[in-house]
């Protein structure tokens, strides 16, 4: 059996004349916690809705657990759980009644599971209190409880920690990590809280204006978000070729003014400087820079960035 359990190829969604998702392709391996990262309106929720079958793609294909036809996709979705946008629940019914309705609708025989998941998300003491009197955080927890009801193999969560207090965020994070580690649940999660995502995800998909701008693993992201050297010289045009040919440095980027950011061999600055001098390139500015995830995000999906960088294809890596 293939390790890729979600595969999306050239997925497109168009509303009237506006394309909100443009030829998106990615694969999710079993066991991954994949973060779907992007600004508002980037197309994250639409992608999740297409995976869930509530929005129909205009083009492209979706493969879930190897199934691509309508019947197979519907069956595959029964092995998944979704929480998309604000968790929806019947306002006049209690948390337990909402889950009971969900249990009946999913045809689950185990009534005891409701108490179990309510306890897990900390809503077991809400009794007959109607959901309309719940805080947003409580509704989020109820949504997660609903997603956990079936013991899914994949959870697709859209902004699951929105509205939660810091304590709640930690609890949900620990819960998701536990589900991933102990029950091998694969998770596709979107969030604006990038710092929070960095504590969870094994892989990332950065999306902007409906297009994937980069796919990379947590290791790659960490490497790119850690220290890097910014070097400017009297001969910036010769610098990239020298770094590649003389030092074998490949992970660097060239800024508009020709200066260079080097992401690898951070501890070899002496050697880099020496090689530059030997090749007649005199550094005019060298300084170490410590980028964080937010900075990286802004650099990647911010309005000024127009370059599409494929990075490492996380699905291709597996294939």
């Amino acid at each position, binding site marked *: 059996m293939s390790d890729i359990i979600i595969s999306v190829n050239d997925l497109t969604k168009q509303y009237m004349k506006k394309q909100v998702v443009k030829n998106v392709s990615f694969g999710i391996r079993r066991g991954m916690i994949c973060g779907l990262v992007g600004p508002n309106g980037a197309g994250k929720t639409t992608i999740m*809705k297409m995976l*869930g*079958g*509530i*929005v*129909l793609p205009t083009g492209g294909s979706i493969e879930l657990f190897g199934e691509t036809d*309508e*019947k197979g*996709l*519907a*069956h*595959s*979705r*029964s*092995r*998944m*759980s*979704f929480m*998309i946008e604000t968790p*929806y*629940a*019947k*306002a*006049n*019914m209690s948390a337990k*009644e909402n889950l*009971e*309705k*969900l249990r*009946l*609708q*999913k*045809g689950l025989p185990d009534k005891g599971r409701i108490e179990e998941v309510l306890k897990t998300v900390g809503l077991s003491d809400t009794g007959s209190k109607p959901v309309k009197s719940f805080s947003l955080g409580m509704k989020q927890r109820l949504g997660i409880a*609903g997603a956990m009801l*079936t013991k899914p193999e994949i959870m697709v969560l859209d902004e699951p920690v929105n509205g939660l207090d810091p304590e709640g965020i930690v609890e949900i994070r620990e819960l998701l990590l536990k589900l991933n580690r102990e029950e091998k649940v694969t998770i596709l999660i979107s969030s604006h809280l990038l710092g929070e995502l960095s504590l969870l995800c094994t892989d990332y998909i950065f999306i902007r204006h409906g297009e994937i701008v980069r796919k990379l693993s947590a290791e790659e992201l960490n490497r790119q978000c850690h220290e890097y050297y910014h070097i400017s010289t009297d001969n910036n045009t010769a610098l990239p070729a020298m770094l590649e040919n003389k030092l074998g440095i490949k992970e660097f980027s060239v800024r508009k003014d020709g200066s260079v950011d080097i992401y690898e061999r951070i501890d070899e600055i002496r050697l880099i400087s020496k090689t530059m001098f030997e090749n007649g390139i005199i550094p005019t500015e060298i300084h170490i820079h410590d980028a964080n995830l937010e900075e990286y995000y802004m650099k990647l999906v911010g309005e000024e960035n127009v370059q599409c960088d494929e990075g490492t294809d996380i699905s291709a890596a597996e294939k």
Partner: protein
Amino acid sequence: MFNVMKAQIYQLLRNRGTYIILTIALIFTFCVNFADISGKNETELVGSYVLANSGSTNIVIISVLLVAFTAMVCGGDMGDRTINYELLAGTKRSDVYFGRAIVSLAVNILFSAVFTLLPLLYFTLRYGWGHTMTVNDGLARITLTLLPMIRMTSFYIMLTFLLRNNFAVYAISYILSMVEMLVPAFISELFDTTATLYIFSMDCFDRIMVPKNAGLGFFDDEDIMVVKDVIDSSIAYSIIISGIVGTAVFLLLGYAVFRRRDMN
């Protein structure tokens, strides 16, 4: 589909709206049937007389019940988008749609039967059936109303899936009920036609449940009200055909809309 139906019934039983609508309908039925009971003689309280005379009020109660419960079952989960969870859980769109359609039809048939038969049963048990119409004629009329009722429910199922808003369905149903009351009557004045039966469900109800030709008859030394018109076979066939065709068309149209619709 069975799971969707079970979940819908569970939800309906826990919905305060269900009990409010039923209570109002019960009060209305009680008032209509029992308000001036003391002023009536016994021949006006027998089952057949009650059936012959309660048609027009029953039409109103039943059509309100049909709209209310159809919108509640089919549209209740669309307003708050909880219907999305059924699709996300891998339930096929056909099951989501037809599961609700079946529950709507079942609930409407059940409650319509209750509100039609309950007063009828009471008066028949207490005062007897009487001679205003035969038992067979009464049963035929009640049975025939099932088809326009199913057709009307199917129309509102389609409308609810089309509009996805209960209040819009209520508003349109109100306007349509006015149209359905006035237009067939107007057409009937001008032409002798059964064409209106194919377009207006209310006209079907009206022709079955509201006898047009009733007069005094002499029976057991007493003048009693007797229904003289029998249901014409061409009208009965028209009602049956329009009921079946209309139900199929409305349900399939509703499904065609829902099947390819984004549930944003």
